[in-house]
């Protein structure tokens, strides 16, 4: 049993206490948007707080690309803190004394929910890259199955950032009578060509890596030797999540070896560069840890689902998509986010306004780029904003 929690984010304190991920399997599976039927479907999830007798206090947290079901508290076995622990817990922005908070790993993920690492019942081997392509809508449908199973008919709120924000929006559109409110953070109603381009480069890094491909269908999970392609994909992604300002403040042009007066003028012993600047070693570290905790086929499947996300195309225009929304909406963007800039949030807001929906919009002046909602320095602002909004929802 670990003694001190391992901190991912400085202000996370694991206040909620020890938690363990639960699993539920839906033998009937689900019909995917592509037409394929996928069964069975297992969902990894965690819950925090208590469901009220009226069953009206449930808040669904939807994670971003690399997240998982462990959003808050301290993991019983690994001792790790939840990825949004600073926001979720007793007395926090999403107050577990008031709300019954649910978070699940997305379909296609690699943290317990059915995905490329799961065994394909037809071949008795892991799906690997033969896992069917999925959409944001499929992910949301699986969450709806989980919410049903937990005995919740109508969510008080669904909230997510980035890919999670897309799904929060998808929830409001797909299940208008099951969502009282939705918070859409740093998201878009359609992925931009720039976003598609970055995802394509990331996947290409994986595709060009011979190590990954050769072992893609072999039966082994975390122990599998994942190629560096995934690390490169993560590095590219990570650059897009940060702002230029953050990089300047965090790393500047500092060199990795602080005792060195100047450049090494060397590419290292075998001509394989280890990175000389701090920003390089930071990215290297991000890439390495990602290789250890993520699956490259999940990366492919999930980024494809993000690429496919286009509500305009799916509904014949955003106005049409939002016609039936009844949830109270809060759309949040970050001034320093250049991956999903404010204009993309405003496109959502304006289409909602055109349909005379109850929408609030806040662009937050936070300098940390797309990932601002995860950065601790932004948590006090996010806490008063989201805490205040949740309170105002009836």
């Amino acid at each position, binding site marked *: 049993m670990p003694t001190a929690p391992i901190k991912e984010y400085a202000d996370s304190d694991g206040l909620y206490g020890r938690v363990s991920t639960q699993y539920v399997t839906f033998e009937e599976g689900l019909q995917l948007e592509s037409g394929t039927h996928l069964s069975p479907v297992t969902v990894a999830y965690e819950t925090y707080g208590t469901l009220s007798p009226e069953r009206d206090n449930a808040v669904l947290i939807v994670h971003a690309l690399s997240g998982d079901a462990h959003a808050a508290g301290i993991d019983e076995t690994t001792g790790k803190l939840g990825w949004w622990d600073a926001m979720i817990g007793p007395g926090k922005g999403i107050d577990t004394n008031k709300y019954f908070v649910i978070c699940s790993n997305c379909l296609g993920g690699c943290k317990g929910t059915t995905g490329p690492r799961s065994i394909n019942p037809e071949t008795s081997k892991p799906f690997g890259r033969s896992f069917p392509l999925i959409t944001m809508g499929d992910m949301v449908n699986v969450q709806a199955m989980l919410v049903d199973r937990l005995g919740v008919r109508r969510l008080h709120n669904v909230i997510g950032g980035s890919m999670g924000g897309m799904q929060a929006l998808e929830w409001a559109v797909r299940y208008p009578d099951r969502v009282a409110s939705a918070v859409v953070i740093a998201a878009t109603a359609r992925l931009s060509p720039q976003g598609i381009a970055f995802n394509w480069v990331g996947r290409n890094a994986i595709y060009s890596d011979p190590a990954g491909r050769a072992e893609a269908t072999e039966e082994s999970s975390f122990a599998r030797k994942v190629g560096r392609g995934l690390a490169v994909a993560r590095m590219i992604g990570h650059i897009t999540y940060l702002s230029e300002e953050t990089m300047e403040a965090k790393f500047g042009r500092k060199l990795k070896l602080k005792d060195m007066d100047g450049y090494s003028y060397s590419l290292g012993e075998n001509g394989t560069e280890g990175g000389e600047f701090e920003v390089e070693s930071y990215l290297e570290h991000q890439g390495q840890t990602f290789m250890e905790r993520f699956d490259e086929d999940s990366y492919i499947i999930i980024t494809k689902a993000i690429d496919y996300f286009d509500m305009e195309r799916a509904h014949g225009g955003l106005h049409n998509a939002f016609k039936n929304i009844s949830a109270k909406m809060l759309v949040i963007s970050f001034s320093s986010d250049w991956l999903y800039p404010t204009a993309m949030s405003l496109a959502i807001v304006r289409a909602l306004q055109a349909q005379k929906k109850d929408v*609030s919009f*806040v662009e937050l002046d936070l300098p940390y780029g797309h990932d601002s909602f995860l950065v601790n320095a932004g948590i006090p*602002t996010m806490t*008063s904003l989201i805490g*205040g909004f949740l309170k105002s929802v009836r």
Partner: protein
Amino acid sequence: MCAEVRNIRTPFHEFAVGFNVIINLIEPGTRVLDLGCGSGTLLQRLREEKNIEGCGVELDQAKVLRCIERGIRVMRLDLDEGLEGFPNKSYEYVVLSRTLQQLTYPEKLVTEMLRVGFKSIITFPNFGHWRAALQYLLKGRMPVCGAHPHPWHSTPDIHPLTISDFRDFIRKIGGTIEKEIHIVNSVPRDDAFWANRRAEWGCYLISAS
């Protein structure tokens, strides 16, 4: 003199006289858009006293957060960028209180207000007030007192106007003045005599012609 008249502007800032004037103009149970809504004080009062469905627009982040905490619908937008996305005639009233003279593009915004609302309510400090005029005339400097407490180089009031200017302006953009209320010695009066020289504030109910 200035210390004494400085509080000419206070009534609107302290939400007492000014807000009451606005609140009295608004029919219960309507939709109200408050531009430059601050922390949402007016909208909260309107919700409590007149059962209105409100929405605010504010640029200051801290004030926007306060609105959300109060459960007031709000958009963080820059009024100088207009009201893109707000559908035509989607509010019974669009309110612009104390902000007209601070806009870079007042004509653009007021035109937009007439598009978005059935009626608009605009309040502004009257720079035609006799004290200001007297300061300008006798001292030969931009007035610093009462309705305009800041020196020229640091005032947010970049577009000072008088009540006569405002009447001309509304005519020019094709609006109709339905009701004029003037604050004279901190007391609201319907269409006060010699308002352009006596009123500290003008409060106007206008509609598109």
